[in-house]
């Protein structure tokens, strides 16, 4: 691990000002930024120990849990999730469990109890890919780390890699779960930054790799996520997160589905669908949602929706199984969600 200066901030503004002391040139790979915020540390400390991240200035923002960023609030305007709330706090919160089950489940099914006690919600959505070639500095070729160096995963061991949203520069999978719940439920993100505060749709936060896989999010240097706001919605209560993985617990998704349904008897009024484990970013499946609107959930309808969701899939080598696995995961999630008693 490279040495760094450790600083602590007690307010979002103080954090932004401190972060700014080490300026990162534009177009630097996100992972190579000179200045980093530290919350739970479960991604940052890990990647620093691997030398994938080598920040010179680390600003500890854990004291922000004494601000609104440490709170969960539920009311008529929806759900407020402070960015410094721990995953385990949100997963166990009665209002979240009852009113937004897909959020609670996406958190509970992620990582381990220890990691969930450490990791913040803000850090969780920014966790970095588990692509082996990205994490292993002995591979020179990684467009995410070193723009233009190539991608070792393209023709390498890519069983866990993405089949949706990839480019010829990068096929690294977005590894998280919580983000699928947020994008399905039309959440927004409160961001503090050097030029003030702003709110962006969660669906705009992560960037597909395209030509610039080293720029991973819409956040600018110094931007700090302070909260997520999930609006109230008739489909929020009938929602679930289904995660399929190589082992039953403590594993990243091979395929997952965050599903929320507003039902009128057996007919779907509205559906919200996001897919995980199969894409380079949290993946909203809007075509599949449209295919379900006004329909009853028979086998043909379900399969047609799944076909729509994966119509653009481009498997590469070892990850071809994810096309069928992803479709089946979505169909099962839809069936189980429709059968929920609420």
């Amino acid at each position, binding site marked *: 691990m490279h040495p*760094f200066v450790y600083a602590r*901030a007690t307010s979002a503004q103080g954090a932004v000002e401190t972060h700014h*002391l080490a300026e990162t040139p534009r177009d630097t790979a996100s992972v190579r930024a000179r200045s980093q915020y530290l919350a739970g540390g479960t991604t940052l400390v890990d990647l620093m120990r691997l030398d994938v991240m080598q920040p010179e200035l680390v600003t500890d923002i854990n004291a922000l849990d004494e601000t609104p960023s440490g709170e969960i609030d539920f009311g008529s305007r929806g759900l407020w999730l402070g960015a410094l709330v721990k995953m385990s706090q949100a997963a166990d919160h009665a209002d979240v469990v009852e009113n937004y089950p897909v959020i609670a489940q996406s958190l509970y099914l992620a990582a381990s*109890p220890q990691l969930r006690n450490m990791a913040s919600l803000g850090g969780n959505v920014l966790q970095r890919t588990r692509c082996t070639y990205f994490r292993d500095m002995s591979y020179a070729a990684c467009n995410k780390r070193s723009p233009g160096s190539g991608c070792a995963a393209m023709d390498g061991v890519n069983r866990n890699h993405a089949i949706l949203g990839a480019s010829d520069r990068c096929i690294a999978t977005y590894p998280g779960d919580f983000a699928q719940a947020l994008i399905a439920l039309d959440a927004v993100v409160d961001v503090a930054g050097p030029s003030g505060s702003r709110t962006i749709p969660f669906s705009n936060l992560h960037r597909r790799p395209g030509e610039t896989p080293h720029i991973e999010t819409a956040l600018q240097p110094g931007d700090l996520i302070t909260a997520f706001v999930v609006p109230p919605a008739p489909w929020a209560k009938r929602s679930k997160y289904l995660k399929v993985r190589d082992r039953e617990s403590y594993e990243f998704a091979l395929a997952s589905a965050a599903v929320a349904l507003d039902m009128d008897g057996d007919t779907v009024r509205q559906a919200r669908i996001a897919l995980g484990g199969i894409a380079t970013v949290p993946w909203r499946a809007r075509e599949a949602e449209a295919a379900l609107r006004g329909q009853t959930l028979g086998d043909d309808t379900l399969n047609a929706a799944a076909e729509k969701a994966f119509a653009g899939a481009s498997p590469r080598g070892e990850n071809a199984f994810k096309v069928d696995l992803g479709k089946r995961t979505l169909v099962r999630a839809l069936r189980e969600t429709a059968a929920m008693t609420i």
Partner: protein
Amino acid sequence: MHDTSSGGAGGFSRRNFLTTTMASTMTLSLLDKARGDDSAAARVSPRQPLTLSLNVNGQERRLALDVRTSLLDALREHVGLTGTKKGCDHGQCGACTVLMDGKRVLSCLTLAAMAQGHEITTIEGLAGPDGALHPMQQAFIDHDAFQCGYCTPGQIMSAVACVTEGHAESDAEIREYMSGNLCRCACYPNIVDAVKDAKPKMKET
């Protein structure tokens, strides 16, 4: 990468550093260091040891540590409590599990600096003042819940938290909530038995 010979950390200057609004003992000690050096080249140095105090098993420990030191290494190499084990050092095995303010965390992914102001409990802190084993420790012995023993301190710390969190209501729940602790000797069935056995005994104490 860095110009370490001059103690520099790239391009952020002392003047900039002093204008920020941070407040903490650690930050202040850094600032004091910067203030004490008036040379034009003065920079806040990443090589400057951090002086900090950790509350471990009820005792305050004053330490001067490299900023990179994990809580795990601070406990093992600086406090001298080697009960907490280093397995993977990447948050994947659970061998380094300790309690922070009663909640289980991974000491390998926690910087020692982050642990300031929190109460740390390690495996050495579980037994009573008279040396009587914690019910979970005794249950692991009674149920032969280990073979080589390397993962055991982490398993026991995690098991204690599993019970206090209220996540030991069934075998399935225990397995799920103990999944962050790997045992390559595969003593899992006996670990589940030990947790079930210790649970009512923990309530008695």
